[in-house]
């Protein structure tokens, strides 16, 4: 066979210059194809020669534009995903802190200070947690958190109607159980556990409920 002055072919498929080829022809035998990523494509997909002058002056490659906006949107969504995961751990930390701080026992009032049908306000377990104490009859005392379970407005008991009303969004709770009966609240009011020793009323814990 006549020697054409070429370098002998390297038959290995991953040899330099033959990447991606399956035959035995060196890649430099052919004219390189135009790089499709360098071609500007207008939104109507017609060639640039048929586009108005203003579009040729300010060409926007629409497929590339779509790719970049989806890529950036995905990056933003992954950042959002990180924020959600961080929020979960923030809740876990809040729960740990709530368990650690506890509630303790606090004297609220004397039995004689709260007549039947009257209410008494106090804070428990911290000074930032307002609560209400209600005396329904001679021997029945109830205490709830005063924060509405909708958006934390201060609720107001209406003993004669047997309800607790939230004036912000017209939410109503049952006075006897603290469960929501009307309006936007979905969770019951937190119950403050009471301990009556002689004539003294003590708060001994708080019970949050989902239903």
């Amino acid at each position, binding site marked *: 066979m006549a020697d054409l002055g070429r370098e002998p072919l390297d038959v290995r498929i991953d040899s330099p210059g033959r990447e991606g080829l399956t035959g035995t022809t060196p890649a430099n035998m052919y004219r390189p194809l135009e790089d499709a990523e360098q071609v500007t494509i207008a939104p109507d997909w017609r060639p640039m020669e048929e586009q108005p002058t203003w579009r040729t002056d300010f060409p926007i490659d629409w497929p590339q534009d779509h790719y970049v906006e989806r890529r950036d949107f995905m990056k933003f969504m992954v950042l959002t995903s990180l924020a959600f995961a961080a*929020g979960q751990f923030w809740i876990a930390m809040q*729960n740990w802190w709530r368990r650690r701080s506890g509630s303790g026992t606090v004297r609220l009032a004397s039995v004689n200070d709260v007549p039947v049908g009257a209410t008494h306000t106090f804070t428990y377990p911290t000074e930032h947690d307002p609560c209400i104490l209600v005396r329904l009859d001679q021997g029945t005392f109830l205490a709830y958190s005063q924060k509405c379970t909708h958006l934390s407005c201060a609720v107001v008991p209406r003993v004669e109607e047997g309800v607790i009303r939230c004036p912000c969004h017209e939410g109503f709770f049952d006075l006897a159980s603290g469960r929501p009966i009307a309006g936007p609240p979905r969770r019951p009011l937190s119950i403050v556990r009471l301990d009556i020793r002689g004539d003294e009323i003590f708060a001994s814990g708080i019970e949050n409920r989902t239903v």
Partner: protein
Amino acid sequence: MSLNRPFTRAQRATIVNGMLAFVLMLVVLQLWLLTATMNAFLGGDQSVIWPAAAASLVCFLLNAGLLRYLYYIERTRQ
């Protein structure tokens, strides 16, 4: 032997669309987890807090893995 052929623009657009669909589904799942966990936490139910946090972390790691692959195909393009 390796045939490390970079993806074309059209292929990359298809890949990023598929990855975006997965990421959106996982983010919606995380949003649901966060609202359900917050409701449970405010209601005093502590049993779901750590499992939900672990599930949300797994979702984020899956998303981060997809983003890493996106960076990889961007890098092989050049």
